[in-house]
């Protein structure tokens, strides 16, 4: 059997050069056909269900349309002007901002503290198990664990108020209170996600150059000083990654708000719209009340907001002198 790959690169007296050239072309051609064949399944999924809809959103946000009737008219920016005159839209943005501004720093700092403070502890005997327990909430299904948290936040019989009572603090209405419903969701979110960021920080910390840390210790940098001057600059990139990831995720929180604030009649977002965030409002507008044009306009606003916040964070991170 003659196989073109047997040919020695650079020419062989018995093999004419056109044959070598032909074998190379054939390999390239094969790689092209086989390569596209192999990426095709995932490419189709990405195009049809992700990139396609993303482009489509740019189009439908400027139309007045409804999926169940076959009309659609171009209305320009009309959807957006309607949106800007809805108090609930502004309320949802405010709620989201309040939620993000509290959850992201708290989660990041807590995760960093857990990773740093327990860095040595994790490596002691049994560290793997406790590390797994800290991570565990992140893999649990949101609705299933929300059930127990609704009980924990129960004003009369819940654990949260029992703890407050034990600490001689005033008891709270939690999910039934306008002021404490969103913070209750925040507590759930921190519980559910802090393990993920702790693991990411631990992974980041484990890549720090040991020589640098030891040299710093020899030079007398310990405790806070070592953290401030050596560790913090070194973990800049991973911190940035965690903050961006946490921001993008919390800006889109949906499931826990839907389930925790569901209430007796399924009216998520209450009480009195105090937990209506952007994702929840998009869901309710488009899928509960069938206002698809408004829903798509809101989606586009959210898309742009997330993009903008990410870019701003990138800009800020570049300005700070981080080790890269």
């Amino acid at each position, binding site marked *: 059997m003659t196989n073109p790959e047997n040919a020695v690169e650079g020419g062989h007296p018995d093999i004419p050069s056109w044959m070598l050239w032909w074998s190379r072309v054939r390999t390239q051609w094969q790689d092209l056909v086989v390569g596209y064949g192999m990426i095709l399944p995932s490419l189709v*999924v990405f195009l049809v269900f992700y990139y396609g809809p993303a482009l489509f959103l740019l189009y439908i946000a400027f139309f007045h349309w409804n999926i169940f009737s076959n009309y659609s008219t171009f209305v320009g920016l009309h959807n957006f002007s309607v949106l800007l005159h809805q108090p609930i839209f502004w309320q949802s943005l405010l709620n989201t901002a309040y939620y993000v501004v509290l959850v992201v720093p708290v989660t990041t700092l807590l995760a960093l503290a857990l990773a740093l403070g327990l860095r040595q502890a994790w490596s002691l005997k049994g560290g793997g198990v406790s590390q797994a327990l800290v991570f565990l909430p992140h893999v649990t299904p949101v*609705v299933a664990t929300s059930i*127990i948290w609704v009980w924990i936040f129960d004003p009369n019989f819940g654990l949260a108020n029992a703890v407050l009572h034990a600490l001689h603090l005033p008891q709270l209405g939690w999910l039934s209170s306008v002021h404490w419903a969103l913070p209750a969701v925040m507590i759930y979110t921190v*519980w559910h996600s802090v393990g993920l960021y702790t693991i990411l920080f631990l992974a980041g910390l484990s890549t720090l150059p040991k020589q640098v840390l030891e040299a710093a210790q020899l030079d007398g940098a310990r405790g806070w000083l070592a953290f401030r001057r050596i560790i913090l600059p070194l973990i800049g990139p991973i911190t940035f990654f965690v903050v961006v990831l946490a921001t993008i995720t919390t800006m889109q929180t949906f499931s826990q708000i839907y389930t925790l604030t569901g209430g007796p009649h399924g009216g998520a977002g209450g009480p009195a719209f105090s937990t209506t965030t952007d994702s929840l409002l998009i869901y309710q507008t488009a899928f509960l009340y069938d206002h698809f044009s408004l829903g798509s306009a809101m989606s586009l606003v959210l898309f742009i907001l997330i993009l903008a916040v990410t870019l701003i964070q990138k800009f800020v991170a570049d300005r700070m002198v981080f080790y890269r």
Partner: protein
Amino acid sequence: MKTWLTYGLRAIVAALMAAPIYWVFVIATGKSGDAYSIPPVWRPLFHWAPFMYVWIHTPWARYVLNSVIISASTIILVVVTSALAGYALAELKFPGNSLYFYMTLGVMMLPQQALLVPQYVVMFHLHLLNTYTGLIVPFAASTSGIFLFRQFFMKLPASYREIARLEGVGTLTYLRRVAVPLARPAVATTVLLTFISSWNQFQWPLIMTNSSGLQPIELALSHYMQAYQSHWRDLTSAALIALLPILIVFAFTQRHIVTAVAGGEVGQKE
């Protein structure tokens, strides 16, 4: 002394994080009024009768079956599409290779909540609303899966592929018989991560289905939650059905999962 302090601190942190999950057991397997006891009950009684009652008297078997069908199909599809694309990205040189690499990355950047409305329209026009296909196919390709396989295939010695070529073995056969079996850790990680994300699916089925026959367990739970307000023992028993598979899988594979999420070299153990 200091060691005991770190041990203690570590134990407290771990216990606090696990406490809510522990209380699911306490309430679900306790006496019927336990959820209303002051001070709260903290010891599980392991009465499995209420758990069995909920399991038998409501169609949870159906919901679990739905979740199993959806998760299993998604896992198989993700492994296949990831292995194929990962191999193409790692081993084959073709125009568009690096473009596709960035496209795969880009999918992760798209904000999911902002895409739901146009995605719903696409699903509507493809007649995929209220179908198993509609709950599975959009998740049949995964960025992290493709990356994992790509990383693994890049580490395979180039000589393996050369030999396969000389022997006249086709690319697909080589992939199926040599490359994928060698990339077992990547397969395991992809299976685990896909299982967790697809078992925990909630919002997509909430929007894409309106018949109870298709409901996966998380969606069914949220309806149950609204119907059985504050029947805590029934609710936690139902929650336990959704939680147990995750807890069991996690108990046996936690090291693997944690390493995978941390982006570590999972395969180094082997």
